[in-house]
C-alpha cells in the first residue's frame, strides 16, 4: 500500500524548521498541565537560579507577555505557531518559573455582573 518512492515538495513537505524541532520532539504536554485557550499568561521577572536556555520562540513569547498578559490563543496567533506547539513551549516556561498562568473564569463564576455590562456597552461603542 505504501509507495516508498513518494516524495513531498513545497508546502506538502512542511515548514523548514520542523515543528518537532521547535518542541524538541514532544507532541503534547501531559493532560494535567494542559493550558486552556483562554488561560492568561503573565511573564515573571527572571529567577537568577534558573539557567534555561530559551529558544527564539520561547524568548518571543516572554517578550510578548512582558508587555501585558496574553491568553494562550493570542500567543499562538501572534507567534504563528500551532496551538499544540505553543502549549509545549509554555509548559517549559511554566516549569522554569518564567511565567505564571491564570486559568479562565467560568461564566457562572464571573466576579460580578458589571463585567458583562461592560462587554455589552463596549460592543455598542464599537
Amino acid at each position, binding site marked *: 500500500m505504501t509507495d516508498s518512492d513518494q516524495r513531498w515538495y513545497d508546502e506538502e513537505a512542511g515548514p523548514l524548521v520542523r515543528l518537532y524541532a521547535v518542541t524538541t520532539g514532544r507532541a503534547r504536554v501531559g493532560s494535567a498541565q494542559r493550558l486552556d485557550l483562554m488561560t492568561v499568561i503573565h511573564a515573571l521577572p527572571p529567577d537568577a537560579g534558573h539557567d534555561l536556555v530559551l529558544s527564539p520562540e520561547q524568548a518571543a513569547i516572554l517578550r510578548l507577555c512582558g508587555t501585558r498578559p496574553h491568553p494562550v490563543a493570542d500567543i499562538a496567533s501572534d507567534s504563528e505557531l500551532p496551538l499544540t506547539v505553543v502549549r509545549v513551549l509554555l509548559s517549559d516556561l511554566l516549569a522554569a518559573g518564567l511565567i505564571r498562568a491564570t486559568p479562565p473564569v467560568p461564566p457562572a463564576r464571573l466576579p460580578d455582573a458589571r463585567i458583562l455590562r461592560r462587554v455589552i456597552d463596549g460592543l455598542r461603542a*464599537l
Partner: protein
Amino acid sequence: MDSERSDAPAPFLALKILVAGGFGVGKTTFVGTVSEIRPLNTEELLTEAGRMDDSLDEVADKRTTTVALDFGRITFGDDLALYLFGTPGQDRFWFLWDELATGALGAVVLADTRRLRDSFPAVDYFERHRLPFVVAVNCFNGLREYSACEVATALDLDEETPVVLCDARDRESGKEVLITLVELAGEAAATSATTEPM
C-alpha cells in the same frame, strides 16, 4: 491544573464566544466584520482527526494535519477582551468543539434558510452542553424570506433561544447578535451561579 494558580486575581480577563454553523454560512465573514480577525492554527493527529473519513493510504507517513480556526479579538480597555472562535466546518474536527466550548460564554449559530439542516448539528451540540446560544439567520443579499419565529419552529428551538435576522457583512448587525448573546449569557450565568458549570 496544579501548576496554575487560581487564587490570584486576573488582571486581564479573556471571555470566549463560539461562532458555529454549516459550511459556507458566513462564519469567517461574521468574525471578520465584528472583530480583529487573525490566523490561529492547531496541529492535530490525523488518526484522531480523520479516523471517520480519511483514507490514510495515500499519506502513509503524514500523521498530523493543520486545522485553521477563525479567531477574532475585541478588546475593551487594558483588562478585558472578548475572543471569537469560528468552529471548524468539517465534521471530522468535532473533537475540537469540546475544547472550544469549555468555559465559553455562549455561541452564535449562523444559519442560512436555504440550508437550515446544516445548523442542526451545532444547535444539537449547544443544547446538549447547555451552552447559551443565539441563532443568527444570515440574510444573504438582504433577503428575509422567513421570520425569526418560522426559523425557531423549523429548528425546533427551546423557547428561550433567541433567533435574530442578521447580515454577517454588516458590523452593526453583527454587534446586535453579540449583544443579544451576552445578555442571554448574563441571565444564564445568574440563574446557574449556584450550580456547577460545564
